[in-house]
């Protein structure tokens, strides 16, 4: 297999990595760049644990080859906020208890972030429609939806 050199802008930082054609975006993000918020779940596009934002769009990184992502901008949860300075959506997830074991949480936080950025006034129905690409086996989804609605409310009040 021919090695391919790719450049990604991950959470604002340029990274150049040598990959083989059969490496996926998740393999590079999780194992090469050590971004452990990108979880390997089903690895066939069903669970959504590996969701990241690629050029601002939510994608499942297990169904994208690393080579395909060359030149793109990637955002993972690590890029949203830190322990000391959590992003609005992360604060809302803590406040509304929108997580339990945490396995699916990074995907939901990124989707929540995408909703805040792109459809801040999304209705509960619209939120559910967007979230239906990720599976959670603990929370029953209710608190996750509550968390996103809370973040929407905070964002509106701030304005």
């Amino acid at each position, binding site marked *: 297999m021919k090695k391919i050199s790719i450049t990604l802008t991950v959470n604002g930082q340029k990274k150049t990595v040598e990959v083989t054609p059969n490496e996926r975006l998740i393999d590079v993000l999780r194992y090469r760049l050590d971004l452990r918020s990108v979880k390997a779940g089903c690895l066939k596009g069903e669970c959504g644990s590996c969701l990241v934002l690629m050029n601002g769009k939510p994608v499942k990184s297990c169904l994208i080859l690393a080579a*395909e992502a060359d030149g793109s901008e990637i955002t993972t949860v690590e890029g949203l906020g830190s322990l000391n300075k959590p992003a609005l959506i992360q604060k809302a997830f803590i406040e509304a208890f929108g997580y339990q074991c945490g396995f699916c949480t990074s995907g939901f936080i990124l989707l929540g972030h995408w909703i805040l950025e792109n459809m801040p006034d999304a209705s509960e129905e619209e939120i559910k429609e967007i979230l239906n690409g990720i599976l959670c086996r603990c929370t029953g989804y209710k608190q996750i939806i509550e968390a996103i609605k809370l973040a929407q409310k905070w964002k509106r009040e701030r304005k």
Partner: protein
Amino acid sequence: MSVLVFRTTLPRFEYLRPKSLGEALELKAKYGGDAMILAGGTDLLVDIRMRAKKPKYVIDIKGVKELSELKYVEGRGLEIGSAVTLSEIERSKVVKEKFHVLWDAVRQLADFPLRTRATLAGNIANASPASDSAPALLVLGAEVELSSTRGTRKLPIKKFFKWVKQTYMEPDEMITRIFVPEPPRDSKGMYLKFTRISVEDLSVVGIAGLAANPKEPEKRIVRLAYASVAPTPVLVEEVEEIFKHDKPVKELIREAVEAVKKKTSPITDVRGTAEYRRHLIEFGTAYLLNRLLEVIE
């Protein structure tokens, strides 16, 4: 190699990213069946991982500009390049207003993060009997443009599917565009998808319906096509004929249901039994026709 590594990583292949259509076709001509086209990758990479497909070369067509266009010309219809994503189709106002059945099917296909990558051409090329877009394209009378270094041909979508995951494409051909002709004036369209759960899932039964001029028998156009009821997506051509007759609509609906039952052959699988599918076909067909022909709201 351990079982875990074998099951979770991808096997070896070479990655090719042509910059023009000519280059892509040259590669397909050179490698034929050993090369597979990667558009969205949401089906191909799953099949590669599960070792259901074993390409030596993967040709990524997202760098080909000619294939990334979604165009609408009034009077002629839609032209959808094979690298156009389902999200782009879903966001298109023209598709939503004029090609409603296609829009309705696309918005119910897979889930939001997958639709940002998956393409319409990929959904067709994969030739799954459960394809949600295929029934919509069947009732709209779409055509698939197939290209190779030998030339270009157009195949009506009803002659495209051969069997489960098999098409009439030649090994050196690739889908370049999908043409969707202008639907009949004032037509209504709908895609009814029955699933086990209310979120992302393949259909137990999927039904696409298109209807125009419900009150005038000679001008009436009614078309129905199905997913997950046979080895390929099916257009039940008899339905259009039945609705040309000047009879009470309720009677025509009964005749159409009978015609559909004859043309479908559902099986039992993880998503439902053949018996349950037959029930859904009957109920869904009658419900969809009642809605489209304005018998019920």
